[in-house]
């Protein structure tokens, strides 16, 4: 648990797009500027900055360095970078704030998937001996996971369609969504052909470009900057075996553990934002968090933004989950929320953030 109270006081994101013309840093400049403006601070008040991105995605060594220009690195600033989703950058900045000598920190995440073929790029994150040489891509892997989930009897293809239909409908209210359909229905989705059986195309995320930024502050600084800060009650991330073949891919023990370590006690939540990049993963994550029945009863709002199926800017999509949850606490429509981010093949590594209003 944090040694000090830390809250989200500002945030911004770009609309997810299939292919944005601006460069990654050009997309970041207005996002970071807007997050800082929303927090009502001057960027020189920021004590620590952490960025998350992936050079494999950008396609150049040290590509992450120019992203820092969006934060304004002159006069020199204290900063760091993670080769991971912005959620992990936020985690590092949150840890840094706990040292107690600075009051404000900035984190951001960015990624443009459009220049590359994501199936080629993400095959490279698999082990280099057995899986990467096969060119095993994320969609095929997710198909294996979906099949395992069906075979386990925990879910049906209609359950997958139900996840997608709700995502499309809820995304209709999200101005940053890439895919939305206010009238999406399970029956229409189930009539679509398979893409990687048992997955249909809509069970998979879109390819997206996008950026996200978040400003955090400590204690009274947070209260001064924001009428109703989104307090980070805990944040934790846990990792499982790299090789998907040696774990139970129909559940996510690392998500369950991260939630416990983040201080989630199983009590009531208003909403959960899950980085369920493929529709079956939402069911897996809800079950692992003990939230399946609350979600089914409608008492828990699941991915009110539409989630990653509505927009999937890799390296930003996880942190977007956290700011989507925080936004609803800051605007008063929610009081307690869990947000989740993931990394690695088939939910290998998972981060959970517990947020509350005051």
């Amino acid at each position, binding site marked *: 648990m944090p040694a000090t109270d830390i809250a989200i006081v500002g945030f911004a994101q770009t609309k997810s797009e299939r292919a944005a013309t601006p460069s990654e840093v050009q997309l970041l*400049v207005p996002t970071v500027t807007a997050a800082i403006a929303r927090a009502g601070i001057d960027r020189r008040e920021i004590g620590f900055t952490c960025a998350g991105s992936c050079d494999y995605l950008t396609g150049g060594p040290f590509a992450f360095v120019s992203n820092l*220009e969006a934060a*304004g690195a002159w006069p020199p600033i204290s900063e760091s970078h993670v080769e991971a989703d912005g959620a992990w950058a936020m985690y590092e900045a949150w840890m840094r704030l706990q040292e107690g000598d600075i009051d404000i920190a900035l984190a951001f995440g960015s990624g443009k998937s459009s220049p590359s073929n994501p199936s*080629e790029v993400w095959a490279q994150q698999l082990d280099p001996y057995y899986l990467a040489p096969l060119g095993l891509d994320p969609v095929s892997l997710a198909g294996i996971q979906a099949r395992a989930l069906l075979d386990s009897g925990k879910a049906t293809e209609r359950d997958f369609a139900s996840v997608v239909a709700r995502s499309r409908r809820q995304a209709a209210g999200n101005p940053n969504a890439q895919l939305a359909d206010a009238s999406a229905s399970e029956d229409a989705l189930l009539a679509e052909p398979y893409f990687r059986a048992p997955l249909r195309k809509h069970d998979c995320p879109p390819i997206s470009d996008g950026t996200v930024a978040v400003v955090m502050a400590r204690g009274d600084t947070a209260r001064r900057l924001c009428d109703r800060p989104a307090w980070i009650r805990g944040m934790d991330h846990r990792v499982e075996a790299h090789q998907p073949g040696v774990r139970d891919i129909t559940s996510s023990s690392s998500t369950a553990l991260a939630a416990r370590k983040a201080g989630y006690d199983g009590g009531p939540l208003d909403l959960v934002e899950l980085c369920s990049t493929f529709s079956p993963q939402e069911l897996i994550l809800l079950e692992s968090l003990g939230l399946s029945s609350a979600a089914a009863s409608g008492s828990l709002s699941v991915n009110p933004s539409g989630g990653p199926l509505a927009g999937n800017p890799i390296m930003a999509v996880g942190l977007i989950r956290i700011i989507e949850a925080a936004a609803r606490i800051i605007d008063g429509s929610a009081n307690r929320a869990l947000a989740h981010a993931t990394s690695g093949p088939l939910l290998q590594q998972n981060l959970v953030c517990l947020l509350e209003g005051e």
Partner: protein
Amino acid sequence: MTDVAKEHLVMEHLVTLTYHERLTDNLNRFADNLLEGRIIGAKCPNCGRVFVPSKGYCSLCVVPTTEADEVELPDTGTVTGFTIVTPVNYYGQTKTEPFVYASVLLDGADTTLGGMDITGVTHEELRTGLRVKASWKPREERSVEGMSNRGWGGFGDVVHSFEATGEPDAGEDVYKEHLF
């Protein structure tokens, strides 16, 4: 383990990743102008610094720059730094004789053009402060292939070199803040 088994411990795994990217709008305009023999930069609306080429924003003020902020620059400038590279025979190296890699600060610019060849002086005479002017290739020989959104984007293949003009050298104050 036998020696036979050890033969199988080596695995070749060659990976090719292909990226397709359109030039950003600011670099697209820069490239179009280079083909016409013009060099444009972007003047920050906040601090007035001129970036060549435009980055689409000022990296010091963190404000976007647009087409309205773009200015044409002369093709004359000052050498701010250089190295003379003695090529070694590595894969992809096409040069066989020592060659110049110089940074040129165009008059009125705040960023330098890197990797330029300097002609009109011997390698021994090359120095910071040397005044130079672009020696443009004929229109039909100019190319901007190879420009990219990465780094500074490059200058394409539009000039033979920057040629020493014979003017007196520029003073240190002209370039001391603009070495790279």
